[in-house]
């Protein structure tokens, strides 16, 4: 019986099914912990740095909102988190997470915006799996590529210099740089589209 094809299929199928069950259980248990940790250890320090000296009235981590981005090509629901900082009852700064497909997987970026003068306050890589020494340099906050976003005007979006934009790539890591810039650009589009309506609330 062990050599019958249906038996092989059943054994492999049952093993894979149980494995999937176990994994979804573990994923369900760990996801909230991992999200909380990213919020506390990665997003909070970055936002504190970007919004430093602004004396915001609210705690933008506490007041975060979930932004519905519709569905992706495979029909899965896409969401992101929007952080808004208020001063004098008016939303003055915003930050949000976006991602784009890089060389080795998704690059997740946090972009902070100053809304009055339409400037990017700073960008921070939250996760990436790019090539060590090349694309992985997006993780280094001191990298000129990352630094150049600070103070950049985003009213026309951001794009690579080769595409008529204002961003210089990391040499040797074009794919990662393009993806990173695309993620930041996506954030600017989302902020332009969503933040005014959020300010009215």
């Amino acid at each position: 019986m062990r050599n019958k094809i249906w038996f092989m299929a059943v054994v492999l199928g049952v093993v894979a099914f149980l494995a999937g069950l176990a994994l979804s259980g573990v994923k369900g248990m760990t996801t909230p912990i991992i999200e909380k940790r990213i919020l506390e250890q990665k997003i909070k320090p970055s936002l504190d740095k970007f919004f430093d000296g602004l004396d915001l009235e609210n705690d933008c981590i506490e007041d975060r909102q979930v932004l519905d981005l519709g569905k992706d090509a495979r029909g899965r629901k896409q969401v992101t988190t929007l952080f808004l900082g208020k001063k004098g009852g008016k939303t003055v700064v915003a930050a949000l997470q976006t991602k784009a497909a890089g060389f080795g997987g998704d690059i997740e970026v946090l972009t902070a915006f100053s809304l009055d003068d339409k400037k990017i306050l700073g960008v921070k890589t939250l996760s990436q799996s790019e090539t060590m020494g090349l694309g992985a340099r997006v993780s280094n906050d001191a990298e000129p590529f990352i630094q150049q976003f600070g103070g950049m005007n985003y009213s026309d979006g951001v794009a690579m210099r080769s595409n008529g934009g204002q961003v210089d790539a990391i040499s040797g890591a074009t794919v990662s740089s393009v993806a990173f810039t695309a993620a930041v650009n996506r954030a600017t589009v989302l902020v332009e589209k969503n933040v005014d309506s959020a300010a009215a609330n």
Partner: protein
Amino acid sequence: MKTLTQEFTKGLWEQIPPFRLVLGLCPTLAVTKSLEGGWGMGLATTFVLVCSNIFISALRNVIPPKVRIATFIVIIATFVVITELVMKAYTPMLSETLGVFIPLIVVNCIILGRAEAFASKNGVGRSLLDGLGIGLGFTLALAVLGALRELLGTGKLTMFAQANLDLTIIPLGEGREFLFKFMVDPPGAFVCLGAMLLLMNLISERSARSKAA
């Protein structure tokens, strides 16, 4: 037939993975830049090895021989993903140090090697001890290699960065980061591994000769 104690202890010296089986060299060379990286990788691998050995030996009479490798990989990959998620949740700094090498445990040949060579032919108890022994041997080897490289490379020993348990053994001057940078670079890993292989061979040759005499 080996005794149960022997099944456990063989992994600690006789068949210690990176030096004797010379398996699993990729993580051995890559993550041993620090003591923490060494023991962290070792323990993660031990967990996967013990769990996969238990499951594979328990199912060894059910799994059809023709799809055994596929089944083994599914079981191993499941435990690797569990390890990855749990480490991300509870030991975030260690998980960041080890990075992509945690998911790569799936393709660590020690694990598939033990599944194929041992767990698929032996009972659950023996397989558990075999996995534990080989896993702890791997941990020991990686920790020693990591400690050696980190100490010579930076003069420090990171026990567990998350709990701030770092020791400065050799204090360096202000603004100096490395003692002997070669040791924490990839080529240093090869040299260290070679030196330890030499040392182990010398010791076992000596003990074999003294036994013969």
